[in-house]
């Protein structure tokens, strides 16, 4: 038995031709976050602290679709979600519909540790964030030019798309009637 850590930055139809200028910063972020997590485990930090630490770092990177760089709703807004769970106790906390909280994962942990509930959403979650004094920012902080462009492309293609999947033209028949997937 020994420590182990794994992390992800999303899955989808990531093109094999992904340009170097888009691939390199994402790989660098993965490496940085992995190093951070490994150092924390080597320092005997509890796994719950380690996963929160790593996910906060991923949220703070605009390379990935959480926190800064969150993808946009059809209205051009951000609605962020997060969840954390402790394997020993089965304690867990989750949040949805956040538009101003910088690190949703830390608010999820506060839901787990400071409330009798496991899931808060939208206005209630935002109010809880203010009550707990977590860092908040104007919603514009989370919106990147790249994601404005992605939303524009998705709307033109009339599609909802998962991470990194390229929009398919609206007249494509290769969707088996399910327009929910890009």
């Amino acid at each position: 038995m020994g420590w182990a850590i794994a992390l992800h930055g999303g899955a989808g139809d990531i093109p094999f031709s992904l340009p170097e200028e888009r691939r390199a910063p994402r790989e660098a972020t993965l490496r940085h976050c992995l190093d951070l997590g490994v150092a924390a485990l080597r320092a005997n930090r509890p796994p719950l602290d380690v996963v929160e630490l790593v996910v906060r770092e991923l949220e703070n990177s605009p390379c990935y679709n959480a926190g800064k760089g969150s993808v946009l709703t059809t209205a051009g807004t951000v609605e962020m979600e997060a969840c954390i769970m402790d394997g020993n106790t089965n304690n867990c906390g989750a949040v949805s519909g956040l538009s101003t909280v910088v690190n949703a994962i830390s608010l999820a942990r506060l839901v787990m540790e400071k409330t009798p509930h496991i899931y808060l959403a939208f206005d209630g979650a935002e109010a809880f964030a203010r009550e707990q004094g977590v860092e908040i920012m104007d919603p514009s902080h989370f919106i990147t030019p790249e994601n404005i462009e992605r939303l524009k492309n998705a709307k033109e293609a009339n599609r909802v798309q998962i991470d990194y999947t390229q929009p398919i033209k609206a007249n494509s028949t290769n969707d088996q009637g399910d327009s929910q997937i890009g």
Partner: protein
Amino acid sequence: TVGCVAVDNHGNLASATSTGGLVNKMVGRIGDTPIIGSGTYANPFCAVSATGKGESIIRATVARDVAALMEYKGLSLKEAAAYVVEKVPKGNVGLVAVSANGEVTMPFNTTGMFRACATEEGYSEIAIWPVD
């Protein structure tokens, strides 16, 4: 979506996932990430964080199913995760998971998944596409 799972050398496990959801999603849409047992789960057997199309991950209760296959059927982490990912429609899911004894697995049925892992034994991997 981003996520992380970890186990220390005492077998303590934890999982965390965070997301902005889907591009062009409807306002008010809830995905798999915050739903316990769908995109995120941890128990004394394993910790799992999933990514992909939330609606498919919720239908398949992906994260909890991995843990359940280990707990009820005695599968290894790799076997359980591979079985669950295979059952979800192709192109819809990826996950990272660790077990209490330090196993790591990162299967996906999409074209790629941004992922990384490390173990105390010295194994380390950073990858996007399938590695043969």
